[in-house]
């Protein structure tokens, strides 16, 4: 195969991988910080996509301008959900294991609730709109403009998220909480304020991802679930709770899928990602990029 074709293949893998990384980052933040494995994450992505579609077709507002709106709406929704469900769960669960199992169940309930609410409100049809469909030439290979924009923005938000965690005082607090929640509370980090905020931030990121996805792909009420599963796979690849790992894992999975699909056939895509997922979980449950000595 020629070099150009390889570049094109890896490029298309990276584009999908960028979105995977963004979805996985939000989910990983919630799991790493609060031990809430939010199975409903993909559903909130779908809500973000529907919001964008609705406003764009009704008012004609550019989807790019909808990004902060989707982020804010879902962020507030996330804080409300944390306030209503998980705050009580934290106070009533006897230990972390039980909290994790119960949190997973609440997330399952949320998944049913949100997915069916959307399909009840807007119907189950495929929807979409045209936005920047002209191809752009990148290094000799033609790429659809909207996909390129999606990739750039997804990468921007992912890196922004990482920078927020690495460089700011807020991020330092969050990382401290991830390492030891009791220790963080002892040095004066306010868990009661930080937890809802970070849950909201995670959902906000999924809203952004949904907004980006609606620019390039058609949307339907059932679109969330595959992304949830992909995000789970990415988190496993990168290690539960590791942010840089999630970013790398997302890009890697995108490329693996694109290359694998090229050599076999497209109907094997799901099979391939599940096989990668199970292999990683069985062989390296602590993630591909973490060192063995560090405890997860």
């Amino acid at each position, binding site marked *: 195969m020629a070099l150009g074709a390889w570049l094109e293949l890896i490029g298309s893998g990276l584009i999908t991988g960028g979105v995977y990384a963004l979805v996985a980052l939000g989910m990983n933040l919630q799991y790493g910080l609060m031990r809430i494995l939010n199975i409903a994450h993909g559903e909130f992505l779908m809500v973000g996509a529907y919001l964008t579609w609705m406003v764009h077709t009704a008012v004609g507002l550019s989807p790019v301008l909808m990004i902060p709106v989707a982020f804010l709406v879902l962020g507030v929704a996330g804080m409300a959900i944390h306030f209503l469900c998980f705050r009580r769960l934290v106070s009533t669960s006897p230990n972390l294991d039980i909290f994790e199992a119960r949190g997973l169940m609440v997330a399952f309930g949320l998944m049913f609730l949100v997915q*069916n609410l959307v399909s009840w409100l807007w119907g189950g049809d495929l929807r979409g709109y045209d936005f920047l469909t002209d191809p752009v030439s990148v290094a000799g290979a033609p790429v659809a403009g909207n996909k390129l924009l999606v990739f750039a923005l997804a990468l921007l938000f992912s890196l922004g998220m990482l920078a927020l965690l690495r460089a700011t005082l807020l991020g330092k607090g969050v990382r401290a909480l991830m390492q030891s929640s009791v220790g963080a509370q002892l040095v004066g980090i306010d868990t009661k304020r930080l937890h809802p905020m970070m849950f909201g931030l995670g959902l906000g990121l999924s809203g952004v991802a949904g907004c980006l996805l609606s620019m390039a792909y058609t949307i339907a009420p059932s679109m969330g679930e595959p992304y949830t599963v992909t995000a789970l796979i990415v988190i496993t690849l990168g290690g539960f709770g590791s942010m840089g790992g999630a970013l790398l894992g997302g890009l890697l999975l995108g490329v693996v899928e694109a290359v694998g699909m090229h050599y076999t056939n497209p109907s094997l895509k799901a099979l391939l990602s599940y096989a990668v997922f*199970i292999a990683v979980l069985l062989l390296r449950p602590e993630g591909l990029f973490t060192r063995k000595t560090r405890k997860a």
Partner: protein
Amino acid sequence: MNDRQILTRDLLVLFSLTGWGLSLPYFGSDFMVSMGLTCLMYIALSSSWGLFCGNTRYLSLATSAFFGIGAYTCALQLEQLGWAATIALGAGVAAAVAVVMGAAVLHLRGTYFAVLTFGMTELIRHAVTYYEKSVTGTVGRVLTVVPERDTIYLTVLCLAVITVGLSMWVRRTRLGLALVGIGADEQRAQTLGVDTRWVKLLGFAMTAAVAGAVGAAMSVRWTYIDPHTVFNPFIGFQTVLIALIGGAMTLWGPLIAAVVFSLLAETLRLQAPQVYMMSLGLLLILCVLYLPAGLASLRWDTWKIWRDDIRAWWKERRREWTGEKERDKRRAREQRLV
């Protein structure tokens, strides 16, 4: 009540329920029988799920994989073997798959286990879909020779009774104690001499065998099966939901919840399927938040506790809104100054 009295009570309840179940095809309409069939299916699935997953706290999402394996076994073998042999084969194949799967994943706990079993279910579903599409060249399979309605009903009833009976029996044996011990503290159970690996494998295979048998029995009711319907993850989710809402640790909880759910499903699903699913989700959330031990733990006192909680909450709010709280705080501050 002592141990013996509880056993007698449970046996009597099971006996009378079986009697009701047996008489249903003779007086009920077609609609009622089909509703009873769904109900019995979920009783068997969620009771067997509760037996292993409830007691050991291993949250398995693989029920739909075993269900689908049973259904496919039936679709392939029904014409060669008889009815009873097909169902036994379905149970056997599902249990064999569970042993292989369990050997690989049962050393993981908690979220890892749940996620991994879900992933394996999807892997099996996609593998079957791919195989059907590319090797046999079909999407689904049509079952031409189908037993009568009453035969299916009685088979599923029999499976449900066997499952509840099995669940009763296991709870009274060393195996049941070992399962509960693993759920409470796995390392302690190991220290006390329980061979946790084999106990878990056996429990997991038992759950899978029931799911496989039910799958084999239910597949003939649809007469046309494809991977999308029989490996539907929703079957697995709903089983887990029913068991948790009913109370996964208890004997009768899954049964109560299965009856409630079948009624809810039949009344709501036809008019408003989305509303049904939404109420399912909401019910699950409310149940986990306010009744974590399940419907079976609902007592007269529970209502009283809720009532007192709401009253206390309302009193606190009223104190806050009328400014009473602020006044109290100020008074306390002034007293300190004096």
